[in-house]
């Protein structure tokens, strides 16, 4: 086209990003990439095969890399374990210098990395250049800061050891940064497996690690397919697994690591709502959608894939979306004038196509703009789907493609209900010019992120992660650091947590008047469903009383009671504090009785019982105090924005208590949970349940609302299994046996409950490990509400 013609048509021309120098680098590795283990490039022990990497936009061959087998993963874990003692013992400042060097190297090679990422993944060069790589550098900078400050800010924490990390293909470098930076900042050493479609930038990063002089073994990169990931997940010497990927694989990892003592963070799928109220800046919301669902071809775990629009403006909004999409440019990801690039792989393209077709079969109306879409390579046009309800497959399933579904709502409540009508809970967007409305619904949405009048905003300072089946744990922020640390000396030995019942030696009750302890459900004493009771013996084998022998229906009823009484979770912190103080007050009145009960049941001295009692009252005071002090944070990411990191209760929690110190451990577990606004179903000590059943009389007189604390006595393991298998329950704390811990983690995989188990270890309830932030962190989840501002 000549200049005069272009002058008339004002068309766009090609604007390719230069890539020859990246191809030169790939050619220099034409024999195939080896594995990066212990600071060296080593051949795979297990396999001579290579995996090929192709440019999804063109099908062009890029490079080949090795397949790590079990032996290779083992070698990498050993290298990491060898590096760990020295790396973790380095002064924070020394580790900070390495992270800073990596951050600077990333910046210095940013264009190279952007081009390589785009070649390998198919995302537009604009995104890898303007979004991914700057965030990668930012992540290393930010975590250089945590390495520097760790001694001051996290003094009671220590690194875990060897961390295994498995990352997805949608943001290869960014996910790698999210994994590696906090892990090594905290003093861990990592074995990371990049995704098989997109391993090249991680391999380039390994070269940067060499250039940075990172000690051998601190970062190990092992390439391969799912098997390689499984070897990492199952390796016994790995202390923690961090995974980002599909919910299905996340579930597998939860099951596979159950009982292993491995710490786990899972950042999984999503079906995030994008809510537009009638008072929104509609043009802004339309452009936001482009960034929500057509960012990275929709292959984004937190993509705003479900548009929920207030009915009155739906037609207008949809029309505007169509106008916008008709200006879309889909094509060569290396072209600087495109909106959307290539789908990562033909398999993914096939999945998108199949799901959209199924949706259409179920009655969905599928609209695609009349724009040029390359006919070769892996491309799928931006797609808008209307005439769907929550039952349609395209609304239910994560498509992981550039596909938006549209539904309408009438009221704010209905918007929230539709938003939450999903198993996922990763992210959400809310568009309204009314800050009252926006913050109201932000509080109602069950998701780890709420972007007000914006979407897909990320920053290293703001923890990212999901609610529900979108996984658990956070990446970024201080909360992200805790995922790579553990409290020093938290757990004691395997002994002393549970107490065997003595042999009964006297059938007669030592009490004067018969007391029958029942379950405590929905604020009322409830007879056990099965109609049976269990004998509770004193320390010397006398009958101390009977408690209900709860069964699965009692647990069901207790969870139901907790579910039906959500008010506690939205009560003010001051209100919760008052109730907990009141419990303490009422407990203190009954000192003599409770101390006597402790002595009689557990056989401890009166002095020891008194100490446990006093500590119990003190602990209640502690959590009454904490109720209005475990505040969230206000982050100031490097955009005109504040991000409110709110600590929200998890919801309904199951709490399984140990036998040791039956009063104190019961209170130490229940009090932080309710202080943070959770409703609980508690299985008290199997051996000493009477302390808990006596306690409900105190609850009855302490203004504790119905359903906040429900107590079911009986066989700990049987009841725990029912709890773990209950999908309404969102978290479970278990202080029982090692085998019970395994079961809890395994059975929690189905709905990806947050679990906190003791692996059979005991805890010193009288010490600093018996209370504090550790408990509060487990009792809350962080929701980041991003509030951009400007007028």
């Amino acid at each position, binding site marked *: 086209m000549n200049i005069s013609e*272009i*002058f008339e048509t004002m068309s766009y*021309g090609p604007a390719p990003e230069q890539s020859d120098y990246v191809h030169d680098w790939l050619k220099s590795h034409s024999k195939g990439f080896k594995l990066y283990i212990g600071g060296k490039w080593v051949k795979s022990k297990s396999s001579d095969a290579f995996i090929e990497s192709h440019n999804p936009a063109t099908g062009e061959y890029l490079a080949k890399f090795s397949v790590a087998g079990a032996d290779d993963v083992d070698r990498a874990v050993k290298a990491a374990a060898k590096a760990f003692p020295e790396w973790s013992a380095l002064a924070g400042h020394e580790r900070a210098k390495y992270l800073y060097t990596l951050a600077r190297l990333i910046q210095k090679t940013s264009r190279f990395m952007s081009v390589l990422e785009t070649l390998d993944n198919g995302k537009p060069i604009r995104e890898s250049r303007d979004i991914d790589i700057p965030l990668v550098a930012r992540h290393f900078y930010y975590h250089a800061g945590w390495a520097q400050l760790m001694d001051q800010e996290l003094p009671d924490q220590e690194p875990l050891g060897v961390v295994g990390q498995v990352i997805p293909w949608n943001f290869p470098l960014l996910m790698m940064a999210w994994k590696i930076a906090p892990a090594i900042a905290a003093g861990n050493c990592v074995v990371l497996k990049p995704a098989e479609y997109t391993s090249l930038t991680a391999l380039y990063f390994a070269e940067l690690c060499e250039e940075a002089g990172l000690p051998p073994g601190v970062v190990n990169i092992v390439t391969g397919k799912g098997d390689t990931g499984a070897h990492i997940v199952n390796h016994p010497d790995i202390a923690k697994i961090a995974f980002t990927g599909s919910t299905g694989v996340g579930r597998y990892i939860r099951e596979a690591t159950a009982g292993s003592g491995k710490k786990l963070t899972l950042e999984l799928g999503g079906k995030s709502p994008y809510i537009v109220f009638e008072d929104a800046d509609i043009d802004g919301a339309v*452009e936001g959608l482009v960034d929500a669902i057509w960012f990275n071809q929709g292959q984004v775990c937190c993509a705003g894939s479900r548009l929920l629009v207030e009915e009155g403006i739906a037609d207008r909004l949809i029309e505007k979306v169509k106008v916008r999409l008709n200006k879309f440019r889909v094509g060569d990801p290396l072209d600087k*004038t495109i909106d959307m690039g290539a789908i990562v792989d033909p398999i993914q393209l096939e999945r998108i196509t199949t799901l959209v077709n199924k949706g259409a079969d179920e009655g969905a109306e599928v609209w695609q703009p009349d724009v040029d879409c390359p006919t070769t390579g892996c491309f799928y046009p931006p797609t808008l789907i209307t005439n769907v309800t929550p039952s349609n497959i395209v609304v239910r399933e994560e498509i992981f493609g550039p596909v938006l579904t549209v539904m309408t709502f009438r009221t704010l409540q209905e918007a929230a209900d539709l938003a939450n009508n999903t198993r996922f809970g990763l992210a959400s967007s809310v*568009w309204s010019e009314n800050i009252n409305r926006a913050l109201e619904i932000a509080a109602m949405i069950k998701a780890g992120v709420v972007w007000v009048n914006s979407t897909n905003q990320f920053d290293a300072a703001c923890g990212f992660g999901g609610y529900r089946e979108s996984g658990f744990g956070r990446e970024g922020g201080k909360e992200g650091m805790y995922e790579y640390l553990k409290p020093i000396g938290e757990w004691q030995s395997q002994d002393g947590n549970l107490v065997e019942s003595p042999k009964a030696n006297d059938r007669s009750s030592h009490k004067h008047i018969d007391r029958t302890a029942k379950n405590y459900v929905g604020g009322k004493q409830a007879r056990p469903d099965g109609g049976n009771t269990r004998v509770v013996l004193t320390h010397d084998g006398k009958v101390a009383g009977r408690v209900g022998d709860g069964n699965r229906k009692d647990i069901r009823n207790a969870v139901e009671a907790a579910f039906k009484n959500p008010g506690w979770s939205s009560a003010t912190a001051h209100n919760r504090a008052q109730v907990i103080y009141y419990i303490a007050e009422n407990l203190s009145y009954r000192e003599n009785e409770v101390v006597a009960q402790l002595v009689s049941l557990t056989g401890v001295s009166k002095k020891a019982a008194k100490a446990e009692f006093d500590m119990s009252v003190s602990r209640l005071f502690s959590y009454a105090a904490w109720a209005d002090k475990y505040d969230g944070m206000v982050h100031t990411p490097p955009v*005109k924005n504040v991000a409110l990191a709110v600590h929200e209760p998890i919801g309904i929690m199951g709490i399984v208590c140990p036998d040791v110190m039956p009063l104190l451990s019961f209170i130490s577990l229940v009090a932080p949970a309710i202080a943070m606004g959770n409703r609980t179903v508690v299985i008290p000590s199997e051996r000493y349940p009477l302390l808990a059943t006596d306690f409900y009389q105190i609850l009855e007189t302490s203004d504790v609302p119905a359903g906040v604390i429900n107590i079911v006595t009986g066989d700990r393991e049987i009841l725990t299994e029912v709890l773990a298998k209950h999908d309404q329950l969102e978290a479970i704390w278990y202080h029982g046996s090692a085998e019970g811990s395994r079961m809890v983690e395994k059975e929690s995989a189905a709905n990806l409950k947050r679990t906190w188990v003791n692996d059979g270890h005991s805890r010193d309830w009288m010490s600093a490990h018996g209370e504090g932030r550790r408990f509060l962190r487990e009792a809350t989840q962080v929701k980041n509400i991003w509030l951009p501002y400007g007028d």
Partner: protein
Amino acid sequence: MSETKEILINSYPRVEGCDFQASWVDEIRINKSAVDRRISSLGGRRTVKKQWQAAWLLKAISCIDLTTLSGDDTPGRVKRLCAKARNPVRPDILEALGFENMKLTTGAVCVYHEMVETAVAALKGSGIPVAAVSTGFPAGLAPLETRLAEIRASVAAGAEEIDIVISRRYVLTGDWRTLYDEVRAYREACGEAHMKSILATGQLGSITKVAKASMVCMMAGADFIKTSTGMEGVNATLPVSLVMIRMIREFYAKTGQKVGYKPAGGISTAKLALQYLMLIKEELGDEWLSPHMFRFGASSLLGDIERQLEHFVTGRYSAANRHSMG
């Protein structure tokens, strides 16, 4: 009258405007941060290179209101500017671009009333319209009768375009009806001349006020809405432009009437001019990429574009003194 003038007026009938609709003002919602994000990402989403860039820069020249608005303007200065408007780019460069027969001129020449006659005479036969800033430009605080009289005088002197300034106080106090009446009165005074309505966006306090003022001016029959006088602390910006052209789009959707857009002040580089053109293309469409619908109010922009064009032709970076002064 020259040929182009007739085309300008006859083919592009004046925007009629419509009755004042309070609800069209009240319903406006603008989210500033969303506006800023659109602008910050647009530069990465679109670019033009090589001959596309050259062609787009030539388009930018055709849309320039070559402007001098200075207290020391004289007939000599204005004549020189008009000569530049007729021949904005060195002929050898145009030839190298294959553009020598395209009769490239700037979109208009923009002056104060006292310079209108000089400019009209200097541009005779070129087809380039003369635009006069008016209504007590730049503050707009002369008596209403004076302001109206100024419009009539400039039109009588041959100005085909009148750049009026709105009374910012009506915007700041939310007195939309009075603003409407004022602009409507200016429009009547313009007769057949086209009216550009200057909002002085840098003085309106918020981006939502800019949007509302845009809507009111269009209802009142502005042919163009224009950002700035060039005298405010902040003049044309891309975010403000996005908001104003979205209002143009909205007004078109409501009435079927197409209003033009003129960012003015602070646009002095070829790169920035291209960003404006891309913004217009993306948000309004190709139809607005013409001097009938889009103008740059600029004085030094042309010089930078000339240098860029020479660079495209020769591969060598150019110097200012190689191009004739305006």
